[in-house]
């Protein structure tokens, strides 16, 4: 399946990746080749086959409803590129 550059730009936008023109062209080419390569799956008969939902089935063990975390203070914010007054800071979002 050929992927055109417009599609690459749309996907890059969804993935929040800024791409240069050369990258767009290269990715269009590579993605086309890779998607052509995976086409082989289309020929596999999968009627009536349930998709995998757990690799190794096991009961879904739940957590008890207890407060065991939070209150991290500095540890939470120490790696932040920008912070202020206990918040993470980002460029102004206009709503």
């Amino acid at each position: 399946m050929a992927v055109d550059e417009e599609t690459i730009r749309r996907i890059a936008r969804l993935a929040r990746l800024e791409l240069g023109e050369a990258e767009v062209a290269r990715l269009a080419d590579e993605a086309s080749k890779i998607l052509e390569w995976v086409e082989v799956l289309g020929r596999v008969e999968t009627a009536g086959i349930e998709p995998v939902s757990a690799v190794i089935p096991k009961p879904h063990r739940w957590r008890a409803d207890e407060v065991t975390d939070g209150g991290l203070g500095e540890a939470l914010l120490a790696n932040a590129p920008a912070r202020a007054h206990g918040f993470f800071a980002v460029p102004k979002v206009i709503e």
Partner: protein
Amino acid sequence: MSTGAIIEGRTGPWEMVLGLEVHAQVISKSKLFSGAATAFGAEPNAQVSFVDAAFPGMLPVLNGECVRQAVRTGLALGCTINRWSRFDRKNYFYADLPAGYQISQYQHPVVGEGALEIALEDGSTRTVGIERIHLEQDAGKSIHDLNPELSYVDLNRAGVALMEIVSKPDMRSPEEAGAYVATLRAILRAIGACDGNMQEGSLRADVNVSVRRPGAPFGTRCEIKNVNSIRFIQQAVAFEARRQVAILETGGTIHQETRLFDPDRGETRSLRSKEDAHDYRYFPDPDLLPLELSEAFIEECRASLPELPAARRMRYEAELGLSPYLARLLTADMEQSVWFEALLAETAARQGRPAREVAEKAANWMTGELFGALNRLGLGIGQSPVSPAQAAALLAMVADGTLSGPLARQVFELMLETGEDPAAIAEARGLKQVSDTGALEAAIAEVLAAHAAKVAEYRAGKDKLFGFFVGQVMKATGGRANPALVNTLLRQALG
């Protein structure tokens, strides 16, 4: 079947079609997938774990209590419970969505179809279908007004468990939408699944609105996001339906879009979607296993449900003999209902009579006197200055003749002001009904002596004057005389 409000347009009648997605915060101590606390009003980022902040290598672990609450809610709404459900990732980028995806249940929700009966002002009822209920994470909060160049991100809410309760497009008027949310809220509070606090955002709704000619196929809908009060929901719906009618009547078409309700202006406006359309790329969350529920777990959830408002309403009608009107009024709100249950129990005990015999008087007093007073004072039932026990004491004093109706009203006013017990108030202020025959006979004698001419006229046949004498006796006793006794004694005295 439609009880909906018809919009009379220039070109004829239109009908609105409404569906609601209610987001209800699940009552739980910790978040849906982390052990951080959920309490409202903490310092910024104080209730955040590394899981909530989506640090590298952090993984979600499901809080069983949230599953339990979703299943209980489903059972309370008569929904099917899906024995197998799954968590999916909804992928999009936003500053207050740390992982870049929200864990939700897209394809396989934990709760399936059900229905909710709502009662309308005119006493009629309607059934609103429930499409599904699923569990999902709340997002954090961006704060835009603290800095001119920056937005601040607080992740305290990030990861808090929400239930999204999706109705079918079964509502046809603002009133129905309001009644639906009110009823749903009452149930959520009754079963303790959500505190229903709309101001704090524990309950909010996305409202889908479309209009059509009555009986025609559904029109294109617009979604009004995040409306956080019943009144706003009704205003938003009314405005949006009129807006759509106006567009259609001038030959325009409705574009499916997301809109916001502006409570200050009472109107909805388009939330301009930026150049990119949403493409959420849902897929099953590989960090979580499918959710499989056992019959035993579901039965445990069922057994843990309290009496639900609908059942309680029917019980009030059948067992207490209350009118449908009173029964509905007293069960619409859980807190009010609990208050009434307490009042009823105290009243029956105090008067030594079965609940059925005292229910109507108690119900009338509560819906009339108490609701009226609270309304006037702008208080909720939870803030009532008068407790159920005090109210029962007041009703008992009326029942045993200690207080007349008017006196009871005076005592009640003083109870509201002071919070004191009715007996103490009546005693201190001398507001007890005078049923002492001797005292009344003396008062009557005085009245008759002072109005000898009128007594003569009465005796000559002017019967109408009897009311005059009653009035004078009441006046002489400061309104405290037992009216029945005054009548009897007066007739005796006037021969």
